[in-house]
């Protein structure tokens, strides 16, 4: 007989993409997610969309959090989402974004597949609770 015990841990990728050197927020969030008991993979700065896709697929993360403060979200985020789609990874990855994203751009991103957008002032508890509730069942 075999005794098996499910030991699921939520895995997150915190991603910085494009020419955006502001990573304080990504660090703070990585730490908060770690303290919530998640496994956090941090991408490092200046990643290309294809690198984020590669990391998301290989690490098989439940959650992809894209931090973007450069204003290039309308270009870079859809590129990542399309890449995930190609690998069949979009359907069961929870994609959230944070950083500086103007209100008028939000509906477009959400329609493209972003589940939630956390702007300045979003609370950590709120974010952790959102992830716990919405992390995909696999």
């Amino acid at each position: 007989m075999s005794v098996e015990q499910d030991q699921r841990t939520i895995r997150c990728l915190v991603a910085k993409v494009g020419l955006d050197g502001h990573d304080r927020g990504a660090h703070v969030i990585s730490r908060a997610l770690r303290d919530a008991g998640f496994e956090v993979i941090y991408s490092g700065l200046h990643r290309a969309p294809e690198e984020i896709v590669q990391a998301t697929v290989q690490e098989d993360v439940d959650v992809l959090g894209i931090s973007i403060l450069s204003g290039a979200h309308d270009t870079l985020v859809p590129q990542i989402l399309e890449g995930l789609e190609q690998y069949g990874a979009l359907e069961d990855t929870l994609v959230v974004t944070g950083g500086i994203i103007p209100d008028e751009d939000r509906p477009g991103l959400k329609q493209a597949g972003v589940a939630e957008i956390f702007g300045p002032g979003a609370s950590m508890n709120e974010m952790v609770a959102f992830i716990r509730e919405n992390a995909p069942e696999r």
Partner: protein
Amino acid sequence: MSQRALVEDLLNGDHRALARVITNIENRRSGYRDLVAQLHQHTGTAEVIGVTGSPGSGKSTLVDKLAATYRDRGLTVGVIAIDPSSPFTGGAVLGDRIRMASNIGDMDVFFRSMSARGTLGGLSTATADAVKALDAFGKDRILVETVGAGQNEVDIVRTADTVTVLVPPGSGDDVQMLKAGILEIGDVFVVNKADLPGADRTVQELREMLQYGDGDVPATVGHHAAGDAVSSLDADDDTEADLWEPQVVETVASEGEGIDDLIESFEAHADHLDSTGERERNARARYAAEIRRLLREDVSELVAAELDRRGGLAQFVDDVLDRERDPYTVADSLVEPLADRVDRNGD
């Protein structure tokens, strides 16, 4: 997706299936054992290299450069990078991926971060199983990277065919190198950051320490004087020729210096494993250890189930606290049904 379909997709080269198989292994998701069992017959072609060394010694950077060099030579690469997890929350920040800058967008380098999820021995099982998944997928070289401190990590590194230990320059005097686990596990030693002052001395000290050997194992050929050439043809020379002399290689991983030399050392060690039959001996020992480990885990889970059935540990602790019973008696009584069964089978 069914287990069988998942295995099929993995064997057909689907990256996502490979990633999901490793996730199931890590989560010990129900059915993962069947999954690994199905993979086993497809394994045995990859060369597995363990990379260990203290935090900041340059493991991740070295792994990145090794992966890129292997790719230049037309080989596919799998990487498993292990970081510690918090003993308090179980959370972890896995940062080794940041250094993988030389392999951007190259899916033929499959990089996976893993954390120690806290179960005793669980990590080495999960790592060994993840290596199997990469092996079955068809990776030519698999690099397993871990901080080399403690029993658990040494166990992980032992799943590798070749173990390389990174020693940063100026990492203390030669006594530091005598500490358990450092000199014993390495097949190839790397003095990384060899452009830093003190590197020469570290290389020299390392060579000296390695030459002392460990007791009955002569690590040098020093006593073979030139006149011994004839006697060295004698049969008893076999045992000495069979011994691998650990090598010391200098690298500057960030600049890619010394990587070719290092790969050459890995290959020399791989040839040595093949020519001496050590590869098979190691594999036998590894599988024996794996079976033992699985048995240990299974039995401890059976005992845990028995404990639950009897209402949990707390009441037994109460009894022990009140001096009504002692820990030995409690353990004996919990194992009793199992022991009974074993005794009966023995009759």
